[in-house]
């Protein structure tokens, strides 16, 4: 085990040195806060989107996963898991794997119907397929609702126990699978990076976001994968479910009890959702390693004291497990 202060090239203040000798973790000299990310279960689904050209795939993916950063204010959390080569898709065309997370299966089903119906169906040449195993009792009826857009001219095909709906549209047919599998995903995995300048911290956050999204089955639902508006539960305004986390706002130092490192000028958060806990843990592990660059003074995580979710991802465990 390595200790903070020993790798920083400066003499640490007494309080930090004490903390270090009491077991403070670090990665390449960057302090890893002894805390945990608090993740919680959400219903999840995977949509395999295909189109004639990769640029159409990206447009449709952006439309379908837009305005889906957090279930606090959106109907779902969504993002592009990864782009797919033609040999990985059901119809042999370029595609993308999209992940969607919602509070419940009915809510997620409604989100998929509206997002595929409004984001993917209108985009030229697209098709949408299920990307998770289907349990008949837990599946989401998506294509079976979108088919009504066909106004009676739709038709279906059953292949390998999967039903595909063919909906006539102005450039031919939109093909969508009838049932989509759903699973119990894990949302709310997160890292909070604190750095001495915005440039350095943003660079570290981008490094981390790239590393985190490289894990299959996870998404970073916020724009660019990075959050500058970390939030706390509730507000002094009764109708607001979440509000700014003042403890991490550098401009409020001196006015509030700050949780920022004394040398931190900026903090960024990375939020990760995954199909399972291990994917989220792996993503956070890679993110921490990629973010540990000079100028970052602390890597921590957000939690709600263990009251929100059943999955507590301790950063010390991730460091202990290695990259």
């Amino acid at each position, binding site marked *: 085990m390595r200790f903070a202060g020993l790798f920083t090239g400066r003499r640490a203040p007494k309080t930090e040195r004490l903390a270090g000798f009491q077991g403070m973790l670090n990665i390449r000299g960057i302090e890893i806060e002894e805390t945990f990310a608090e993740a919680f279960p959400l219903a999840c689904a995977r949509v395999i989107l295909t189109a004639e050209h990769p640029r159409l795939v990206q447009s449709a993916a952006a439309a379908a996963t837009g305005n889906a950063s957090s279930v606090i204010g959106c109907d779902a959390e969504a993002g592009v898991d990864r782009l797919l080569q033609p040999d990985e898709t059901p119809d042999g065309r370029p595609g993308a794997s999209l992940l969607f997370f919602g509070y419940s299966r009915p809510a997620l089903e409604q989100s998929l119907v509206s997002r595929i119906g409004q984001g993917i169906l209108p985009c030229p040449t697209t098709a949408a397929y299920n990307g998770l195993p289907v349990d008949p009792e837990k599946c989401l009826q998506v294509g079976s609702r979108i088919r009504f857009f066909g106004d009676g001219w739709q038709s279906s*095909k059953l*292949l390998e126990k999967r039903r595909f709906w063919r909906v006539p549209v102005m450039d031919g047919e939109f093909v969508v699978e009838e049932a989509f599998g759903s699973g119990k995903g894990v949302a709310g995995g997160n890292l909070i990076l604190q750095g001495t300048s915005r440039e350095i911290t943003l660079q570290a956050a981008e490094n981390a976001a790239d590393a985190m999204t490289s894990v299959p089955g996870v998404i970073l639902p916020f724009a660019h994968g990075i959050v500058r508006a970390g939030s706390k539960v509730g507000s002094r305004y009764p109708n607001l479910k979440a509000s700014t986390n003042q403890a991490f706002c550098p401009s409020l130092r001196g006015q509030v009890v700050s949780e920022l490192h004394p040398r931190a000028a900026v903090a960024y958060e990375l939020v990760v959702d995954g199909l399972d806990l291990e994917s989220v843990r792996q993503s956070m592990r890679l993110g921490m390693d990629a973010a540990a660059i000079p100028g970052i003074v602390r890597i921590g995580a957000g939690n709600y004291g263990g009251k929100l979710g059943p999955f507590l991802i301790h950063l010390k465990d991730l460091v202990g497990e290695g990259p």
Partner: protein
Amino acid sequence: MLTLTRLKSHPVPLESECIRPDTLSSLDNSAISRLTVWHGKNKAELGEFFAVTGCASDGELVLKGDCSRVKLAGSGMTAGLLKVEGPIGMHTGTGMRGGIIRVEGDADDWLGAEMFGGTIVVTGNAGHHVGAAYRGALRGMRGGEIIILGSAGDELGSTMRRGLIVVAGDTGVFPGINLLAGTVVVLGRPGVRPGAAMRRGSMVFPHYRPELLPTFRCAGPLDSVFPALYFRHLEKMEKRLELGQGFKLKPWNQLTRHSGDHVTLGKGEILCPA
């Protein structure tokens, strides 16, 4: 694996509904030999016509010898593998619900008639009324897959309701007559009057354009991933069922859609080259 070897061929048909791997798997060989079959109008025992060897417990059954007059083999079966090394008679796999029948030879008429599920592979030719409805019945094949590497006879898939029939060779007249739904793919040359009176469903003739009935209307080139889905499905099927050289799957070019049959509902389609 249980092996039933035909002792000698006989022109009188042998109705042997008991030849199915799922029910035989729980019987010993002496019990299998005593199973009832009908030889013409005479009741008889299976052991009088077949030599029974091996063990049926693994759900695999092999028929050897000239079974061209053995009817109803594999009818109603729900699981297991029935392999026929040679020709097989009429009504093979009728009403089957699961498992695989593989005929290494020709199959007679009514192959897979009114079947519900499972897979039938015929490496030779098949007779008339493949996957069809029996006379007076409302629906034919209601699920499953039939793959014929040779040619098929008349009225292929007549009144079929669901499922997939693939014929690598040519077909007789009236393929897909009265089709209710489902998909028929003919890689060879289809017979005349395809899809007559079809209500829904798809008939795909990727390499030959048949002469269509005047009650079909051309909708122009079809821009859909649906043929690609089927093509990839056939590619997978080719590997899964080890269809080998007999299948000869060639790339499909742009297909033209013809809707019909407009003497009925008109929601069916024939896809073929322009």
